[in-house]
Structure formats: C-alpha cells, structure tokens
C-alpha cells in the first residue's frame, strides 16, 4: 500500500485522519468534484430553508395557519435532513474512493424526491380545493 503521508504532502490533520480512516488519497480532481457535489446539496438545503421561511412569512393571506405551519415545517425538516445527510454522503463517497470501492448510492436523493413530491402534492390539493 502506498504511503499515505507521502502522498498527502504532509497536509493531513488529526481530524482528517480520524474522519477519513485508512486507504490512499484519490486523484485530487475526484476529491474536489466530491466537494462541489456536497456544496450543491448544501445549496439545495438552503433553497428548501428559504422556501420554508417564505411560506411562513409571505403566505399568511393565502394559507390558514395550520397548513402554513405544516408546509413550512415540512420544508425546514427536509432542509435539515438534506443538509445533515449531505455531509454523510460526502464522507461515504470520500471513504469509498480512498478504499477503491464502488461509490455508495446517496440516500438523500430519494428523501428529497419524496419530500418534494409530498409538499407539491399538498400544494396541488390546496390549489384545487380552495374556495375562489
């Protein structure tokens, strides 16, 4: 096995060692691509966060308080799950690359699909049944 500290250029800290575990450093381009994907998930989470706040702040005239709170809490909960899950997705992909194993499937993708679909369904039902 290749010498880890020699490949890393001495840049590894104790935290990195503990979090990433064993294996060898992958191509830096793969590491940077994984970081960019993580940031894309974080931006998705921030968009959901802003959406949740917007529903609560701007929809007072349109939605009743119960529906408004439910949709806002759903969006904010989804933002929490996606934000936290994006770290574990990043970590699992990084560990897999270091051990030259197949990349894991991201569980946050179905969570986002189901959560987004649920919120969209609630809004559709509301638009269809609300009195004009």
């Amino acid at each position: 096995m290749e010498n880890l500290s020699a490949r890393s250029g001495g840049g590894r800290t104790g935290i990195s060692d503990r979090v990433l575990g064993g294996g060898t450093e992958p191509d830096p381009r793969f590491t940077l691509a994984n970081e960019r994907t993580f940031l894309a998930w974080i931006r998705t989470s921030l968009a959901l966060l802003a959406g949740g706040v917007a529903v609560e702040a701007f929809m007072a005239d349109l939605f009743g308080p119960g529906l408004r709170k439910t949709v806002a809490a759903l969006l904010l909960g989804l933002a929490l799950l996606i934000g936290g899950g994006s770290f574990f997705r990043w970590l699992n992909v990084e560990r897999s690359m270091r051990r030259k194993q197949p990349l894991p499937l991201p569980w946050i993708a179905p969570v986002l699909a189901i959560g987004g679909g649920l919120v969209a369904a609630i809004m559709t039902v509301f638009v269809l049944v609300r009195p004009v």
Partner: protein
Amino acid sequence: MAWGRTILSLTVAAAIFLRWMHHHGWFVGTLVAAAAVAALAINVTRKRRFHRAINGIKREALTPNVASIAAVTASVVVLASLGIFTVLLIPLEQ
C-alpha cells in the same frame, strides 16, 4: 465558484430571514446573524481554499477539507433547526 455560489445562497437565506423578523421578532435576528457569519467566514477563507486546491492538483495529492465541510454542514443544520423551532414554538407577532 461552488463556494461563491454557496455564499450567495447563504446571503439570500439571511435576507429572507430578515423578512421573517417582522413576524417572529428579535429571535430571528440570531438566524440572520448566523447565516451572515457563515457566509462571511466562507468568503474570508475562500482564497486559502483556492490555493490549497491549486497546490493539491499540482502535487497530485490533496487532503479533503474536512473542517470546512463540517462547519458548513453545522451551519445549515443549526439554521434549519432554529427555523423549525421558530415555526413551531415562537408565536406570530402580528
């Protein structure tokens, strides 16, 4: 650029939180401050991260930036948790 786009997203989130202060009072100020501080911290450390990435590509060895990634995750998780707390437990002021 990915970090720059994240700064922009955090700034937009901070601006939307600002609108929320009207409904939920001063507590939302902590969310505005948290989002703004996170955006500022990313901006301040951006140059260092860029040079680190460039050097890593040049040397063909790059250690993942665990601390930055953990810090961004923590910021978003804290913002979302405080947001849920605000929606469910802090009454509307109007």
